[in-house]
């Protein structure tokens, strides 16, 4: 797998160009608006951001939000894969759970924020809950879809090769569902990021959402923009890490699966 140097250069330069266009569009928008207090320019934002990086406040909030995202995300992924696999493998459970899922699915995580504060308080627990909820629904659906789409011939092949029900699940069904599960995990990561801000906006004393909300009372739009930019960078970075990790470890499951 060698990529020509020239192609790397051009790919990197296109990425840079894309980011540059975004920043200049933002700068143009800010200038057009004319009131820096409403739409701070990129340079203003970067200056404040740098200051906040240096005095450590930004990192504190980032660390707190990230911890909440990861706890809720990992728990949601594990629960979603287990429930989704059960639904996909045991028809009775699948048929029983599906209507529930269809009813619960349209309820946005944001709609649960007030309730989760009453249930779990304004601490970390209510944030974990919101993110868990956002992630688990997606993971149940994508895992169940992957599990049920395992080709019948592959299941029959494994049966005559002597697979027990447990070996069937672990050695045939789950590997067949990997592409679907990983796609779900990637989508869910994005939803986890949307969920954390929603949870932190309303009742929190830390985190990036809190940072954005708190700046409102001070009319500090520049800090708000620092929060937004941080969210963007963090999300893109995690997504990139996810992609690389999948590529490194899951390649044989991702390529050339003929199902679906």
């Amino acid at each position: 797998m060698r990529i020509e140097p020239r192609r790397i250069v051009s790919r990197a330069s296109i990425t840079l160009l894309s980011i540059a266009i975004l920043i200049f569009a933002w700068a143009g928008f800010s200038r057009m608006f004319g009131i820096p207090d409403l739409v701070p320019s990129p340079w203003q934002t970067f200056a404040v951001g740098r200051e906040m990086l240096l005095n450590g406040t930004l990192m504190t909030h980032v660390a707190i939000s990230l911890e909440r995202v990861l706890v809720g995300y990992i728990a949601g992924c594990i629960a979603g894969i287990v429930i989704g696999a059960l639904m996909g493998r045991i028809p009775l459970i699948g048929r029983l759970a599906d209507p529930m899922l269809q009813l619960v699915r349209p309820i946005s995580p944001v709609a649960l924020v007030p309730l989760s504060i009453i249930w779990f308080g304004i601490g970390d627990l209510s944030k974990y809950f919101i993110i868990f909820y956002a992630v688990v629904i997606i993971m149940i659906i994508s895992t169940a879809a992957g599990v049920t789409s395992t080709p019948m011939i592959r299941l029959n092949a494994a049966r005559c090769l002597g697979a027990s029900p447990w070996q069937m699940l672990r050695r045939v069904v789950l590997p067949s569902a990997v592409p679907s599960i990983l796609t779900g995990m990637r989508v869910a990561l994005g939803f986890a990021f949307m969920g954390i801000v929603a949870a932190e906006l309303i009742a929190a004393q830390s985190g990036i959402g809190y940072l954005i909300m708190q700046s409102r009372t001070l009319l500090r739009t520049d800090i708000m923009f620092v929060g937004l930019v941080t969210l963007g960078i963090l999300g893109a970075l995690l997504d990139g890490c996810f992609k690389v990790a999948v590529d490194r470890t899951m390649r044989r499951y991702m390529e050339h699966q003929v199902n679906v």
Partner: protein
Amino acid sequence: MTKPASDGDRSAGRGARRIDWRVLALDDVSLTFNAGKANEYRALRNATLRIERGEFYCLLGPSGCGKSTILNLVAGFLRPDSGAIHLDDREILGPGTDRVVVFQDASNALMPWLRASENVEFGLSLQGLPKATSTKRAIQYLDLVGLADHARKFPYELSGGMKQRCQLARALVLEPQVLLMDEPFAALDAITKRIMQKELVRIWRQYRTTVVYITHDVEEALLLGQRIGIMKRGPGSSLKREIVLAEPYPRNITDRAIAAAYVEAEASLEEEVGATLHAH
């Protein structure tokens, strides 16, 4: 000329072989799909069939005649509505490693995330055999089917013929009593198909398992089978007649006995297809 296998003299030698048996029998087997629904289909009606141990048996019939249904019944994927399937006096109630299937659709039948050697090891690893043992045996069987040089390739890197060799090795490594083959070469090009047929005969004679081979190709059935069972058309199919061919291998379709059998089988099949045409 081959004779039925006499005893467990397989080269690999994994200790005592399973109970000896003589006859694989379907007795008065009937099966209806989607019973009671709008798309109800009576596939088999009182089908009776006897296959002897060590035999190469071809089941030949027009599409939709229920020959794959018979294979799925013997494999244990399906259960009959009435009648029974026995290996001697042991009734077949579900799938087992004594009856391994080679499917036509190799891309789905093989595990796409496993290398050729890992696919062959798959059944052994399910039994909890030590890795070193199963790897050794996998290599031995990859060698038997002529795939040793491609052991590290993934299925998508193998040609259609190679994939079927891989499936064959994956089945044979378990030393099954009966090898069930469901139109395994139907999707291959003509030349590859011919090569694979020769290879299969070679492997069968070396390995001496019982083969039940499903096909709709008259020529293929006559080149491979010691006995050829011709099925009636569906619905409610059963065995129509059998042709016994004691000709030695390798066979050629222009050999006199084979050519005569060809005319006979073709006429018999045409009757079935013709009846279908008139019925519509």
